[in-house]
């Protein structure tokens, strides 16, 4: 009996320790997590910002970091090496887990920490060549002495913070997921560049478009998927001269290639929410007589945020703005002489090319009449608690083959046996652009800086203290024949191979235009019938661009307040253009089954603004969505791949071709008119919104309809911020909708002493218990922006910062 008792007790003790030290399904290892000394309890919950003196091996001289009341570091160093070292150090201090996790996600290494649930995601990231592309960025970055030094110093700074980690300073998420950060390298920095390349240029609709064309024919495609809409107000105004030699533009093939795998898997879908606004006003239109610049890049909104706000000062630079977490320098910002902002150009920089294999071994493929050998890149996916997975990825001269016919697509997104020609795989040195932009003093410097920024292509808007304004659609834009890349191409035919890139001086651009402003909202960079090069068949719908241009045109004596108001504009031109026709459809219509009188009153009185309390916005968006579904869902067999026309093109078609055969619901014996569809959709929308928000339309709100959340990167519900009282919609200038929108709002006035305002949703700290984790969301949702503290020296306005951290050289490297 005593023996049994001893065995049971010892076994119980060991079993308890074992059970507490390992995760169970989604429940983390509670023993490690609840450890009162090293676990979750050690997470700092106080309000203190770093202060005092810290000795760091690797620094050459002292660095002063002053933190302002929002936890923004203002870094003063005597050399650039120390500057970027310190930036890496303070950024890692605030965002280490985010940086580590995002770089793992880019590389397809999440399974190392999350286990086998993320194997397919990892495989996909490797198949599309994320690390392959990052390795090429590293080569370029390290071959330039300037950027090599910046990247090395930044990585050393991050690693200096990692070396000092204590249980208390280790981010909560590492404890939750049960892993430790790995040393930061230049490859990690390059992977962060790949993340943004994928986010902004990693989508394609060509496979789906080809399928739509197969079903509906060319006339339908021209009507709904053409690229020359008269209502578009391009970034470069119509009539801009383009003195370009068109002889380098290739001729198209005689017929359009039809892919063999058209009815296969679903392809990539463009993220309809990616988009941004930027503009600059010439001094002739501002109250101060000096240029004003504004920018709000629309990206996924997460906690921690993608941006990290900081000021970097050394003898040759004093720049303020936001950095992409994990990337040195300031990506969007200003210095004393210039300001710049970015929006995504959105040109087609990813083509799928069908590969003709010689045989089932897929070792050779056809190109230009020859059989070429495919390269194999072996990827080893390490899986926590499981054996490694080896994956051989085939590479052609076009790029990687992300999916083979026998395989199931990850998230059903890639066409099988197609190679990706993606500009994100090309070597380039965006870090050099950032370095030069940060130090630019005038227009010439800015233009010089843009020459090394290749991907993702960006509309770079700028303003200078000298009074210049301008914009350039900048990056590697392939030279294509008209329509090239709209549908999947023939990978064996050189006609589908890109013929180089549009020369820098021939990229769409305009400087100091007569109208006194420049702007972009992801619309066509230039009018397709005027600009000689083919860029893409579609860009963002026109509404945001037109709205911005209308308001900028009307502005005189503009002030920063005018800019704030425009950034906050939630007026929908889309609603203005189609809602009157929709209301006409239900005018005088007597519906017996449902009492819709209050709903009709609500929508008729709505002012097209997507403010949080506007119930009309909730009904309109649902009504439009139901109309779109009613029109398109019957056009194709169930499960068929098809593309839905862009919003503004559909509006024009409804207004101009109201008896189009595509309006009829082909599943019913009678022929439905547009009014019939409007009414069917209205009842569905009325029921849906009533069901979600109650029967009293006076209590409906837009904020309840659209969600308005900003979630933690891991979507941990208790850390998410729900139901933010902010307006906005996809087609509004203020393009906030659930989880996506203005990720950084910035306004800069290029006066003798530069003034600037900015805000992003979230906070500087990645620590969920820190008061700086989500402290800026309320401000971001309001009309106002923070005035940004641009310091000239470590001692400037000492009362304006709340703590100072002194970094001193010393110790062992």
């Amino acid at each position, binding site marked *: 009996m005593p023996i049994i008792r001893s065995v049971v007790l010892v076994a119980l003790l060991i079993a308890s320790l074992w059970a507490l030290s390992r995760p169970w399904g989604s429940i983390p290892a509670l023993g490690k997590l609840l*450890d009162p000394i090293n676990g979750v309890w050690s997470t700092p919950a106080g309000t203190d910002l770093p202060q005092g003196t810290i000795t760091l091996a690797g620094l050459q001289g002292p660095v002063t970091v002053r933190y302002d009341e929002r936890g923004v570091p203002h870094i003063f160093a005597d050399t650039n090496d120390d500057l970027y070292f310190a930036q890496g150090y303070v950024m890692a201090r605030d965002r280490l887990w985010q940086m580590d996790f995002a770089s793992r996600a880019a590389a397809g290494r999440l399974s190392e920490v999350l286990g086998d649930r993320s194997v397919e995601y990892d495989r996909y990231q490797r198949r599309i060549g994320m690390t392959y592309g990052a390795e090429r960025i590293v080569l370029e970055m390290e071959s330039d002495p300037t950027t090599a030094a910046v990247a090395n110093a930044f990585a050393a700074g991050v690693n200096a913070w990692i070396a000092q980690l204590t249980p208390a300073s280790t981010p909560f998420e590492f404890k939750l997921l049960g892993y430790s950060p790995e040393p930061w390298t230049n490859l990690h920095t390059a992977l962060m560049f790949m993340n943004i390349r994928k986010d902004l240029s990693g989508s394609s609709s060509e496979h789906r478009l080809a399928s739509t064309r197969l079903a509906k024919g060319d006339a339908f495609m021209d009507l709904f998927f053409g690229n020359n809409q008269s209502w578009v107000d391009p970034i470069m105004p119509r009539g801009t001269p383009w003195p370009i030699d068109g002889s380098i533009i290739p001729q198209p093939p005689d017929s359009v290639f039809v892919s063999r795998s058209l009815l296969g898997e679903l392809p990539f879908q463009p993220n309809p929410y990616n988009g941004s606004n930027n503009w600059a006003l010439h001094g002739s239109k501002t109250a101060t007589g000096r240029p004003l610049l504004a920018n709000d890049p629309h990206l996924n909104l997460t906690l921690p945020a993608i941006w990290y706000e900081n000021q970097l000062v050394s003898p040759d630079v004093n720049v303020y703005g936001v950095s992409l977490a994990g990337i040195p320098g300031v990506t969007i910002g200003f210095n004393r002489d210039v300001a710049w902002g970015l929006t995504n150009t959105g040109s087609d920089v990813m083509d799928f090319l069908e590969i003709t294999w010689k045989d089932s071994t897929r070792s050779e493929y056809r190109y230009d009449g020859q059989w070429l050998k495919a390269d194999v890149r072996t990827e080893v996916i390490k899986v926590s608690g499981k054996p490694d997975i080896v994956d051989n990825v085939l590479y052609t001269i076009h790029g990687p083959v992300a999916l083979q016919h026998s395989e199931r697509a990850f998230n059903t997104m890639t066409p099988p046996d197609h190679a990706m020609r993606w500009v994100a795989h090309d070597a380039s040195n965006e870090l050099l652009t950032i370095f030069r932009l940060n130090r630019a003093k005038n227009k010439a410097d800015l233009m010089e800086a843009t020459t090394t920024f290749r991907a993702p292509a960006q509309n770079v808007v700028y303003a200078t203290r000298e009074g210049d304004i301008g914009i350039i659609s900048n990056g590697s834009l392939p030279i294509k024949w008209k329509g090239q890349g709209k549908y999947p191409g023939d990978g064996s035919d050189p006609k589908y191979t890109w013929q180089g890139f549009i020369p820098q001086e021939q990229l769409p651009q305009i400087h100091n235009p007569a109208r006194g402003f420049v702007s972009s909202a992801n619309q066509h960079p230039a009018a397709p019938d005027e600009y000689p090069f083919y860029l893409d068949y579609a860009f963002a719908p026109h509404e945001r661009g037109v709205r911005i241009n209308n308001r900028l045109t009307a502005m005189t004596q503009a002030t920063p307040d005018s800019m704030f108001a425009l950034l906050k504009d939630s007026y929908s031109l889309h609603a203005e253009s189609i809602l009157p026709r929709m209301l006409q459809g239900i005018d005088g219509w007597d519906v017996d089954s449902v009492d819709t009188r209050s709903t009709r009153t609500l929508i008729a009185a709505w002012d097209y603004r997507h403010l949080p309390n506007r119930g009309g916005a909730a009904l309109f968006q649902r009504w439009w969505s139901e109309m779109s579904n009613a029109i398109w869902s019957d056009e194709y067999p169930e499960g068929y791949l098809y593309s839905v026309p862009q919003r503004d093109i559909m509006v024009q078609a409804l207004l101009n071709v109201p008896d189009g055969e595509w309006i009829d619901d082909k599943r019913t014996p009678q022929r439905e008119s547009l009014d019939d569809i409007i009414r069917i959709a209205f009842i569905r929308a009325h029921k849906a919104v009533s069901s979600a928000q109650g029967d009293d339309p006076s209590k409906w709100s837009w904020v309840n309809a659209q969600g308005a959340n900003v979630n933690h990167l891991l979507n941990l519900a208790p850390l998410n911020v729900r139901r933010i009282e902010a307006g906005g919609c996809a087609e509004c200038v203020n393009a906030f909708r659930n989880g996506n929108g203005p990720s950084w709002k910035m306004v800069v006035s290029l006066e003798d002493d530069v003034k600037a305002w900015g805000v992003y949703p979230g906070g500087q700290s990645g620590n969920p218990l820190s008061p700086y984790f989500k402290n800026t969301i309320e401000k971001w949702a309001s009309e106002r922006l923070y005035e940004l503290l641009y310091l000239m020296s470590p001692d400037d306005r000492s009362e304006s910062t709340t703590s100072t951290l002194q970094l001193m050289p010393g110790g062992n490297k």
Partner: protein
Amino acid sequence: MIWFLITTIGLVSAYFFSWWAIPVVAFVVCLVRGKTWGEVIGQSTIAGIIITSLVLASTALSYGFDRYDPLAQVIMLPSGLVMALITVLIGGILAGLGGAASYSLRTLSQKRRR
């Protein structure tokens, strides 16, 4: 006095290693000094509770346990206070188990010797 020994040594050990040191210390102390089942289990458990309570008091109490509510909710506990109670409970149970396991071995070896 077993509880005092475990508390003192356990507290220091936990800071140097992790709280896994608490049941180990309880195991060792009870192996050497344990006299009765009641004393071993009771005092080990109390020592574990005291150690975790003291550590929580020094780290989290000043902020208030409610500051930890979001992290508690991430692991599906209702609040920081409940997470604190569970932490203390685990500390007590592990120490109690450590003491009981070692005392059972001690009584077993004593019987064998007799």
